[in-house]
């Protein structure tokens, strides 16, 4: 942890970055994001197994971008988000340095896309084992059971859009949900509208989701909403082999095609 703090101190002292985004202790042992802008504050930074949140969501915020050059404490999903955001022209190449704490406790500074790409290639999938298990369990159910499951879950949605706000890839200034000419999806929280909203979000994240699970953690009513986007991402990976967040150059599965894409359902 000291290595991380020292690294942050060095970066700030030498003026290489103006803000270090990391984790600090929150209430009840939870971790919350920390924006460290002076050497004096580096002591707030912590790093442990509880630092699971994806801090990449802050990188595209105008108020954060204004602070100057950024270093972000990154886990696997953060790194993938960093690449995907760069590929989608939301982050300038080299605008953000990633600080990665290795298993041995060392701190790597990945200051360009190539370094991040190479590091990501060495990491296992970012989907957690628990989520993997949940996905498999759902897949093992019958269609009817799956429908019932999601109907149960989604009817609790209050359409607070916390999932959208927490998602590093939901950076769009004007979301389809807010479009009113035409009004694609009803504004009010309503079973049909909820279903439509979450379908749209999953479709829009297929081939873009970095599987951080942030949306699921953000949901105030505890819907495992990240399973939808994670499944969509997995569907893309399985069918087209073009996973999100593995390269800083655009390789969007739904923006490309192969003439021999194989499906079984088109008549």
């Amino acid at each position, binding site marked *: 942890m000291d290595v991380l703090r020292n690294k942050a101190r060095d970066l700030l002292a030498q003026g290489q970055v103006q803000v270090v985004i990391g984790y600090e202790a929150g209430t009840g042992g939870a971790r919350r994001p920390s924006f460290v802008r002076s050497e004096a504050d580096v002591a707030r930074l912590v790093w442990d197994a509880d630092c699971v949140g994806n801090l990449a969501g802050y990188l595209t915020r105008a108020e954060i971008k204004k602070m100057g050059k950024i270093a972000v404490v990154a886990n696997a999903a953060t790194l993938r988000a960093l690449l995907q955001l760069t590929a*989608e*022209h*939301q982050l300038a190449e080299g605008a953000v340095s990633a600080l990665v704490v290795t298993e041995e406790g060392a701190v790597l500074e990945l200051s360009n896309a190539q370094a991040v790409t190479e590091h990501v290639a060495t990491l296992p999938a970012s989907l957690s084992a628990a989520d993997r298990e949940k996905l498999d369990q759902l897949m093992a159910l019958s269609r009817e059971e799956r429908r019932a499951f999601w109907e149960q879950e989604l009817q609790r949605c209050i359409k607070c859009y916390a999932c959208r706000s927490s998602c590093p890839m939901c*950076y*769009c*200034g*004007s*979301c*389809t949900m807010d*479009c009113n*000419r*035409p009004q*694609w999806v009803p504004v009010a929280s309503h079973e049909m509208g909820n279903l439509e909203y979450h379908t749209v979000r999953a479709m*829009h994240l297929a081939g873009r989701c970095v599987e951080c699970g942030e949306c699921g953690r953000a949901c105030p009513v505890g819907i495992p909403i990240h399973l939808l986007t994670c499944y969509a991402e997995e569907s893309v990976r399985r069918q087209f082999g073009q996973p999100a967040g593995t390269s800083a150059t*655009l390789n*969007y599965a*739904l*923006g*490309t095609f192969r003439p021999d894409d194989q499906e079984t359902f088109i008549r």
Partner: protein
Amino acid sequence: MSRLGVFVCHCGENIGATVDVTEVAERCKHMPGVAHAEDYKYLCSNPGQNKIKQAIEEHQLDGVVVAACSPRMHEPTFRRAVTDAGLNAYMCEVANLREHCSWVHEKADSTTEKAIDLVRLQVEKVKRNKPLDTIQVPITRSALVIGGGIAGIQAALDIADSGHKVIMVERSPALGGHMAQLSETFPTLDCSQCILTPRMVDVSRHPNITLLTYSEVEHVEGFIGNFKVAIRKRARMVDEDLCTGCGECLQKCPTKNVADSFNEGLSMRRAIYVPFAQAVPNIPVIDTENCRKFQGKKCDRCAKACPTKAIKFDQKDQIINVEVGAIVVATGYQVMGTERFPEYGYGTYPDVITGLQFERYASASGPTQGVIKRPSDGKEPETVVFLACSGSRDAAKGVKYCSKICCMYTAKHAMLLKHKNHHAKAYVFYMDIRSAGKNYDEFVRRAIEEDGVKYIRGRVSRIYEEDGKLIVKGADTLLGGEPVEIKADMVVLASAALPNHGQGELAQKLHVGTDPYGFVAEAHPKLRPVETTSAGIFLAGACQSPRDIPETVGQASAAAAKVTALLSRSHLAREPLVAEVNRKPAPQFSDCTGCLLCETACPYQAIGHEEIKDRNGNVLKTVAKINPGLCQGCGTCVSLCRTKAIDLHGYSNEQIFAEIMSL
């Protein structure tokens, strides 16, 4: 509130017999936004169209739905009609009551109900239509012709004769292509060079043609009417302006052992050379791979010999940038080499040659001045076997397709052999004789009946050498597959015609499609045979698939006609049904996030980006930009856009949403 007019057509009995047309018109009157509705026997007739025009004026309509036959039939008719009455053409939509309703369903209430629904769909759509103007794209009124064979020559001359500038790019040092290599041409047996040379000279002298030989297309961007092309003009090491073509340099070059590609390797040339005597332009080129000077040795004999000091060893490749409105691809073909035939000796038997090599032997300008000789010992062969379909129609080791030209040139070869040496024996192994064409079959019959060429129906299994002869082992399928063995002095393979080398890379540069074999694909096999899949790029000759001279010339003229038609206008009018990225007031500027995921999805490379700047030139936002000149209106980007920032004129989100909601 809209003031729409709905016009329901009976189409005689065609709609009227199964749909209650009057009922449809009556119900439409009550639809919100509909100000007028009526039915009529034949709306597409003149009186019918007049009814629409009158109603527009009378009821001050701002939109029209015509419920009649398929829009694919009469949409242009009705759009013209509403224009005459002062409405924008795109304020008119057609509901398909005939093909999609009355003709496919029985007479029933449900059929009439469906007809009403179909009208309602269009009513809801038209309410959200916006007046659109055709897009005017300026046209650069000049053309690029790629390839200087007979296809390119014909296309270039036709375009230039119609008064447009042409830039012609040829990869080799001289014009002429494969046709310049041929001896006589079927079915008339006139000398190929005699008919071609004047055309080559015409090209070089034409005031509207800029000829760039020894040059290749490096890069292409832009779109129909507005292509920007970078051409690499390779260094000849000879100054084209100074050179008089006297040929002194050629005599002095000490390197004499370079295989002469114009003679298909049957003779040797020097390191500085002109491909053939009648070459246009008659300017030598130094082959730097074989020139002593460029291989680090001391030699400047050619430079010393040159009376005008035209030899420039320090010449460099030049990049020439041109702008053209249209491109003709005329890059020709190549033939499959003998090394690709395992059972015919992998190219190790010198006396197994290709048809193109035979042409050089038969040509008066060839290595033997037109005497048919064989490569191994220079003797005149007595028995020559010709193998049609060598590599063609051979799914296992060659190509699946028929090379089309071989049947005719094989008959010609056999005939030429007999004409030049009356005692010679000519055998042709064939599978089918494909001689459709004017005077073609007569030509083949003449070879058989008058010149005594023996045709044997069957493929040859193997060729091997024995006692200085080539043993050709075939079978005669007309004798039930009886094995036939011929001791030949020479074997000529009518080897398959393949896409030219470099064809694939060029197609990529041009963004034109290719077929599975690598030939350039036409836009439509029947109705658009000289257009490629990219607008403004046309094709001519064997780059599309193997073809003979008459067909090539006809096609080249057709391509030229297409080009001329395009270049005859200063602007290109295009349907305004294109996609557009929306704009909004600051600080949003647009719903577009600038993620540019749409860029790769566009089949036409029409999507780029633009920077929105403040007065001081600071970039405020980067958003996608769709080039309306390139966009064809498929809408793939529209459905990909997460923020709905892109919309498609004519099929907008609002229009389709309203259609769905009307059901």
